[in-house]
């Protein structure tokens, strides 16, 4: 075990640390968590003086991290004179663990602005965990249900395999696809993309927003037998229609 640990520690290639507006953004990269921590440790040791005093936003992607993992990460940073302030994740359990530790789960300034249905354009590059190598928004895949109080936000498209329960929130720069029942609040095209769509096996959101438009599910939608539906903006209003591969498949 020990030798393995050391061997991996040398390879710090996929740890990226970059300056963002309010501190440092550290991306953990793929691989075993213990190896990632070792790589991070090595990297911070090498460039310790440079990073000291930094406010860290940790980007963990799809990796599922427990409260204990996050505490270990916070401890690692504090050993190097840094402060873990926020965790950006695409895993709802990780987000909750982070919130339990009073860590932020969004970058500064990106949260409250969304609730009005309109997003200031300068927030674009601040929202969400998934900014790809070339500044292209990434698509995000979330496994498992989002429960009340859990939220996912991304610059790009969001796909959720599982239900989005009432009280949960999904915010995407692009489209939102729910392979399950969508009953929470959903915002597609959050930066103003009026071509964004929302689709779900059962489309019954508490509130559905596309770009700057807001609608609620009609009461009947909750009573009839659910069918897969797709919502989009047409003639300046949001319409939901039954999914038809022939009609929508070539979009």
């Amino acid at each position, binding site marked *: 075990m020990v030798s393995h640990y050391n061997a991996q520690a040398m390879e710090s290639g996929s740890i990226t640390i970059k300056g963002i507006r309010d501190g440092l953004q550290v991306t953990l990269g793929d691989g075993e968590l213990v190896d990632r921590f070792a790589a991070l440790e090595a990297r911070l040791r090498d460039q310790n003086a440079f990073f000291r005093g930094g406010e860290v936003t940790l980007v963990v992607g799809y990796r599922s991290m*427990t*409260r*204990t993992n996050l505490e270990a990460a916070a401890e690692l940073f504090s050993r190097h004179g840094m402060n873990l302030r926020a965790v950006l994740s695409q895993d*709802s*359990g*990780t*987000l*909750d*663990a982070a*919130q*339990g530790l009073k860590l932020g789960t969004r970058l500064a300034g990106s949260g409250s602005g969304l609730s009005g249905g309109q997003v200031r354009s300068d927030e674009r590059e601040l929202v969400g965990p998934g900014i790809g190598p070339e500044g292209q928004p990434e698509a995000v895949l979330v496994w498992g*249900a989002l*429960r*009340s*109080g*859990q939220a996912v936000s991304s610059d790009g498209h969001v796909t959720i395999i599982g*239900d989005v*329960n*009432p*009280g949960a929130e999904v915010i995407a720069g692009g489209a939102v696809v729910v392979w399950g029942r969508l*009953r929470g609040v959903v915002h597609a095209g959050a930066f103003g993309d009026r071509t964004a769509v929302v689709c779900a096996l059962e489309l019954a959101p508490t509130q559905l927003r596309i770009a700057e438009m807001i609608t609620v599910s009609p009461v009947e939608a909750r009573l009839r037998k659910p069918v897969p539906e797709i919502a989009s903006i047409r003639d300046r209003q949001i319409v939901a229609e039954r999914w038809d591969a022939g009609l929508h498949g070539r979009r």
Partner: protein
Amino acid sequence: MQGFTGGDSQGFCHMSARVITITSGKGGVGKTTATANIAAALAQLGNQVVAIDADVGLRNLDLVMGLENRIVYDLVDVIEGRCRLRQAMIRDKRTDGLYLLPAAQTRDKTAVSPSDMVLVCDELRPSFDYILIDSPAGIERGFRNAIAPADEVIIVSNAEVSSVRDADRIIGLLQADEKGAPRLIVNRIKPDMVAAGDMLAIGDVLDVLMIELIGTVPEDDQVIVSTNRGFPVVLENHSLAGEAFRNIARRIRGEEVPFLSLQQNRGLRGWLKKLRGGGK
């Protein structure tokens, strides 16, 4: 540590209690009543049981168990070293093997930390079969204290949207906390209201929460009467709610017990049948 009973729990048979926390998010759904009744039912089945009231500052469990007038020391006294753990335990004289560790009334949640709860439970484990913790409402410190030592969690919800919403939030928090999947009690079901479509059916609750059902308890006026008298309803033979709580206790012990058919109503019985038949 010696056994608390001075009786059959001593000797070479070493027990290690299961710690079960009963919580809900929302207040007033029947956590305390459920804790008192399940604890009494487990004790009646021959187990050594201690119920801990984790609702420091708003203690109630002692009232519902009818033990208020016997409190000398409490949980906070134990944690702050003013007494030994066994001095704070109150033995229920009506039910063999049932004990209460009461909460402090004059302090608040910050008097206890999650690690205090773990220590207290670890000290109790060798002497008991079950440790039941009555969690306070909310998702803050008191809730954190209550779930910290839990081996398993039971969530109590009513068949009503706001308690289901809060239960869902709790399930998300438990997942983040590396606790196993909780089980669900749907409490205070009014069969006639379900039939009339004025209350969520149990199926609607499970549809959202997606966790295992461990019991359904009908609304029963007898519960209010017995709560006021400090006499758990499971100790009465002719109460439907009492029977429901006894069944939950048996399911906790790992027995297969069919779900109660709540006689008054066809609709509910219909879906209970469906649940029994198609549950797995």
